[in-house]
């Protein structure tokens, strides 16, 4: 097909390297997954502090959330990778810096989600289980957490997807993810349209798959 465009489409370089794109995408996925798990752990801790009833701990947890939610991920990434590294004299690998930035940013969002989930449960539940003789930890483990879990799954799914989108930024500090693969391809073959279309399609597909997975878990957890 002769086109009016001055651009010659060449899908060959992209299609020949589909395996590199998939490897890059896999890197994005596992980095996101690991950061997400860490963010959930930290976020849960922060959420418990926020409703702990101890004034200064609550204040600290609140400040943590407000501050970390206000920093753009790119700024945070540079701050960790270039700034913190030079101050404490540690050389983070790009992937480590990426995981730290994604984890801490994500933890501010998960903290708010867990707090909302914990607060949504009727106070009577905690009071009843305490008066039945369950310990504080037991109350959380057997009564509050199972109920919270059902509430937090959909928003946590959104956070995961947000982190996945954030993980594409890691290519800026030379992590070899799928965007980096596309960038290299563009430099070597000058096929910007094909290379970045491929990345966009993979990202849309990944988000669709994870959204579907979240909906599935949501349905499984729904009360009959």
């Amino acid at each position, binding site marked *: 097909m002769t086109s009016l465009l001055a651009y010659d489409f060449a899908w060959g370089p992209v299609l020949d390297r589909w395996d590199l794109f998939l490897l890059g995408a896999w890197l994005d996925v596992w980095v996101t997954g690991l950061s997400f798990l860490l963010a959930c752990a930290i976020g849960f801790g922060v959420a418990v502090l926020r409703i702990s009833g101890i004034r200064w701990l609550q204040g600290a947890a609140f400040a943590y959330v407000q501050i970390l939610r206000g920093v753009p991920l790119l700024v945070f990434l*540079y701050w960790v990778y270039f700034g913190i590294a030079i101050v404490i004299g540690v050389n983070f690998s790009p992937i480590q810096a990426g995981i730290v930035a994604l984890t801490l940013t994500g933890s501010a969002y998960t903290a708010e989600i867990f707090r909302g989930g914990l607060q949504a449960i009727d106070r009577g539940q905690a009071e009843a289980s305490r008066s039945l003789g369950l310990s504080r930890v037991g109350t959380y483990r057997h009564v509050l957490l199972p109920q919270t879990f059902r509430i937090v799954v959909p928003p946590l799914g959104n956070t995961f997807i947000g982190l996945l989108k954030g993980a594409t930024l890691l290519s800026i500090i030379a992590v070899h993810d799928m965007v980096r693969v596309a960038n290299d391809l563009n430099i070597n073959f000058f096929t910007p349209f094909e290379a970045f*279309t491929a990345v966009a399609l993979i*990202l849309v597909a990944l988000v669709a798959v994870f959204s579907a997975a979240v909906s599935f878990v949501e349905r499984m957890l729904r009360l009959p």
Partner: protein
Amino acid sequence: MILAYTFRWELVPESAGVLAHGLKVTLQLSALSFVLSLALGLVVALCRLAPSRPVRAAAYVYTQIFRALSLYVYVLFLYFGIAAVFGIDLGTFAAGVVALTLLNSAYMAEIYRAAIGSVEHGQREAALALGLGHTRTFSSVIGPQAVRVAVPGLVNQLVDIIKDSSIVAVIGVLDLMGTTIQLVNTKRAPFELYTVTALTYIALILLVSAAAALLERRLARHLASGGTGPGPLERMRSFRFRGEAPA
């Protein structure tokens, strides 16, 4: 702990002028994208509620795709990909505005749609029964009520726009982030400069969030009075839309 690093905070005041200029670009970029995506988002939302099936489907695909893309990937696609195919040089600032606008209009569309959905069905029926046309029903009855509900969510979207706007620094826009990267290259003080930039973004975002909270309280004041069942705000909140993105 003894650090081997000597802080050079004195670099910050002497860079303040350059950073302030970058901040101005960030504000322009965000404000322009915010206004444009407010308008485009409304169009997309109306398309999603349109009677014609293909229009609805197209608007649905639009929101799904743009909410799935990260701004970074989209900026690269737009600035390098589309520009090469059509042989147009958008310029970095315009490319940033277009990318921010398109992506955020998809989120805005969902906020508008949820807000319109929160207006009670009877209102529409009553307006139509009173002889108002479809356009008039929307502009005089549904619209004003929906706007009240949508405003806090829309303002909160500005928070995401400001944060996301930092990403256009990678294609060379000299916004707050872009000027900071340049300064770091010459002054070699990454910790001090990125800290100041991070604090500036935090201050900006806390300001916008506070404004959003204030607006929400003001707009909800008349809704707070009694009545049965959830008010429009609660109905809107219970309407789940996928929006939170820690980017």
